[in-house]
Each structure stands twice: as structure tokens, then as C-alpha cells.
């Protein structure tokens, strides 16, 4: 493998960070799409030159950008995410019904097998698929029209379908997570969906063990263990070993089990990373110390990783899509902060360096391991 390309979406544009296999010296390009909110930028796992980007603006709405040359040049494709069927209502914050309305694409998940196929998770929560490289989109209506959907209520950031996982061993199986509805799984390529929230307990909802209503912040899996899922919830770090049918808490000795991102080591399916923040009221690291926590036992026992990270006066947050791992050996990790830093580690998290430190607030970080 020749190197890595880190794709960074920020509040005011996108940036591309590239390095060779050593991952010490970096070239920075950008901003691409300056001034626009770049919610997510992600490359195809089968064609690293193909990259999709969600470009959005409170003024002008949604644009989808596509690159066919690894982020050197971009082409706007189709940003039409009109819901395919008449919309009903979901719950608004005050408990009143609110009509479904598209706001933005939160997450783009390229297919594991076809560079022209990509899934999009959107706010208000729904999923779309393109099979022509973003030239057109079709809604997978089974999610938005789920029997529980009229009871979904947005999280503080909106009713977003923010996480999409594809099971490489079972091509029809897709997971999504919605704030604040929870995890849903489809076993028929997105046609129908069922909640997978058994075992989650959320104090912020009337029935803490309800079928839906949980503010799941992110889920992740290792491709070699597709039945094992890890979750960072609004509170609690969780694990499932049966494809989301049942969850158990693995927060263990974390200083806080509140946070947004969670990811798994590329080569060690039981090595998991989270970045705790204080609470839902204080979105910054405990004690002003930026610490990535690593568990090598699949949860419960966590160790702080601090070398190269600020250990005083650090009050940034790390968003749910702003941490990722590469496929190099040793495995590299990357995360971006609301303070505009992107940190990288080329040794599984033992040591860190700030690749850049003065970008706009970072929304998403994804990495491509280049052949």
C-alpha cells in the first residue's frame, strides 16, 4: 500500500490530506467548496479515485459532489432528495406532529462492491440510494415509513440518519442509526427495516427500554466479525454479538461514557476506540485533557492514549463521523475536532501528531488506504 488520503469535511469547506505509508509528512489541499458545510466526504472502497461529498448550506440547500480523480477535481451531480412517497409526521421537540422535511445529507456510504452505488442517510431521517454515481437518487422508503416513524423525535442536531453500515459477508444486510430513534437493520437490501435496540437503556425517554427513541450516536463493526457491533450512545458504550438483536454495556472504566465517535482497529476486531466527553451538557473532554480511549478486550477495560494530544486546556468536541482507521500495518487512526485540528496516529493510537490544527470546525474524517 502506497499511502493514505484523509478526507476532511468541515463547517466551511473540505480538505484532502495525503501522505505516504509512513504517515509523518502530509500534503494539504483545500478548501474545496469554500464556505459550504461539508457534512461528509467518503471514497469508494473499490475505486479510490471515486469520492462522494455532501455539500450543504442553510441558504442554498443540498449539493452532492463527485470526484473521479481522487479529489483533484469535482463535479456536482444530482442533489434531489425528494421523498418518494407522501410524507407523514414525526414528533417535534415539543411533542407535536411535524411533517417530514428534507434538510441535508448527513452521511454517504459508498458500496463495498460498485463505485457507482452509494447510500445516503439524510435529515429528516430517510435513506436514499444512487446506482449511477450520484446522477439520480431513489428513496428506500421502508425506513421513513416504518411503523414506528411517527413516534421518532429529533436529537439536538436534528432527526438524522447518520450512520450506515454494510455487511460484506451478507450483501443484503444494512444497518443504520438515527438520532433519536435508534438502530435499524435491513436484511433485504433496504426494502424493510426492523429496530435493533434491545438492551439499550436511555434515561432521557419515558420508557428507558423502549423499542425506539434511543439517541444512538454511532455504530461500527469489524468486517471479519459482522455479528459484533459497537455503539457509542448518547450515554453508554455498548456492544452486540448477535447483529444488534441484543446489546450490553461495555463502558467499564471510561471517565465518561458520553461521546460521539467509535471505531474498531483495522486488524484487531476486539480493539475499540472512543473519545469521551464530559456529558450531554458539556461537549468537551473531561478535565480539559484530550484522550482517546482504547480497549483491547472488546470493551469494559479501557486505557487512555495521550501521547501527542493536548493534556490541558482542551475543550473541543469530536463529532460522530470525525474518527476513522486506515488499513495500513500498523493501523492508523485519525480524528478531527470542533477546534479545527486533525490528529493522526500511525501506531494504533500509541502516539499522535496534529496533521493540521487551524481548519474550520471538523464535521467528518474518512481515510482511504491507497494501493
Amino acid at each position, binding site marked *: 500500500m502506497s499511502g493514505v488520503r484523509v478526507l476532511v469535511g468541515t463547517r466551511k469547506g473540505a480538505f484532502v490530506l495525503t501522505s505516504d505509508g509512513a504517515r509523518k509528512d502530509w500534503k494539504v489541499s483545500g478548501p474545496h467548496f469554500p*464556505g*459550504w458545510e461539508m457534512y461528509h466526504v467518503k471514497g469508494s472502497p473499490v475505486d479510490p479515485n471515486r469520492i462522494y461529498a455532501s455539500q450543504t*448550506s*442553510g*441558504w*442554498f*440547500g*443540498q*449539493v452532492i459532489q463527485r470526484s473521479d480523480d481522487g479529489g483533484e477535481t469535482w463535479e*456536482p451531480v444530482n*442533489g*434531489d432528495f*425528494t421523498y418518494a412517497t407522501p410524507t407523514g409526521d414525526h414528533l417535534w421537540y415539543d411533542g407535536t406532529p411535524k411533517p417530514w422535511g428534507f434538510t441535508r445529507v448527513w452521511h454517504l456510504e459508498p458500496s463495498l462492491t460498485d463505485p457507482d452505488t452509494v447510500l445516503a442517510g439524510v435529515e429528516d431521517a430517510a435513506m436514499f440510494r444512487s446506482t449511477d454515481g450520484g446522477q439520480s437518487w431513489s428513496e428506500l422508503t421502508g425506513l421513513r415509513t416504518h411503523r414506528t416513524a411517527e413516534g421518532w423525535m429529533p436529537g439536538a442536531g436534528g432527526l438524522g440518519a447518520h450512520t450506515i453500515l454494510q455487511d460484506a459477508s451478507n450483501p443484503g444486510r444494512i444497518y443504520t442509526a438515527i438520532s433519536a430513534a435508534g438502530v435499524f437493520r435491513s436484511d433485504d437490501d433496504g426494502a424493510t427495516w426492523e429496530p435493533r435496540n434491545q438492551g439499550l437503556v436511555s434515561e432521557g425517554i419515558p420508557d428507558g427500554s423502549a423499542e425506539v427513541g434511543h439517541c444512538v450516536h454511532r455504530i461500527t463493526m469489524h468486517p471479519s466479525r459482522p455479528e459484533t457491533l459497537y455503539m457509542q450512545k448518547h450515554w453508554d458504550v455498548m456492544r452486540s454479538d448477535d447483529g444488534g438483536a441484543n446489546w450490553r454495556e461495555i463502558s467499564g472504566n471510561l471517565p465518561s461514557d458520553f461521546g460521539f465517535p467509535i471505531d474498531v482497529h483495522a486488524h484487531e476486531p476486539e480493539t475499540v476506540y472512543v473519545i469521551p466527553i464530559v456529558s450531554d451538557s458539556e461537549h468537551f473532554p473531561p478535565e480539559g485533557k484530550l484522550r482517546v480511549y482504547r480497549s483491547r478486550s472488546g470493551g469494559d477495560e479501557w486505557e487512555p492514549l495521550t501521547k501527542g494530544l493536548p493534556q490541558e486546556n482542551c475543550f473541543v468536541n469530536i463529532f460522530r463521523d470525525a474518527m476513522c482507521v486506515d488499513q495500513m500495518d500498523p493501523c492508523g487512526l485519525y480524528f478531527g475536532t470542533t477546534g479545527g485540528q486533525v490528529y493522526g496516529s500511525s501506531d494504533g493510537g500509541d502516539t499522535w501528531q496534529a496533521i493540521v490544527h487551524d481548519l474550520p470546525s471538523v464535521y467528518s474524517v474518512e481515510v482511504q488506504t491507497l494501493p
Partner: protein
Amino acid sequence: MTSSHTVRVVIPLHLRRLAQVDGEVQLEVAGNEAGEVTQRAILDALESKYPVLEGLTRDRVTKRRRPLVRFFACSEDLSNEDPDAPLPSAVADGTEPYLVVGSMAGG
């Protein structure tokens, strides 16, 4: 008989970049039965010439103005006017531009 008018339109920086244009754009806009130019006709022509702008000034389905986009001409705010109402002749004859503006809000 349908008339055609060359209308000058100024769009914001972000939309100019998407459309890959510099400065004003000139659009051939069809007049209504009375030979008048309307906001709807201008925006239809804009989206026809630059499809990438579809949905970015008004809703794709309802064609309602996006909340933080404003439409000005001849020193008047036309944002809340009937999109099928005739525009001043100074816009229709190209003397004055039609302005699409991102409203002043937020950072």
C-alpha cells in the same frame, strides 16, 4: 405571441461557483401573454441554463423561495411578491439586473 427578453441576473458567489460563471449572467426569458417578465420565468430560465442550481434558490417541488434567499430588483425587495406578477420593465429590457441574494444571517 410569446416575447423573449434578455434579462440580466446577479447570483451569489456560491451559486456562481457552482454554475461556473463570473459576474452577471444573461438569460433569454420568455414573456407571459402580455409580454411581461415574471420572477418565475427568470428562475425557470436560470435553472434551465444551469441545472446545477435547481433547488438552490427555491424548493424543487413547491417552487417556494428558500427562506434565506431573497430576490431584489430596482431597489425593491420582491421576495414575497407573487412569482407570477410582472416585473418592472427595466428588468425586462435589461436596464436593471434581477438580484438573487443570500440573506444576511448567521456566520
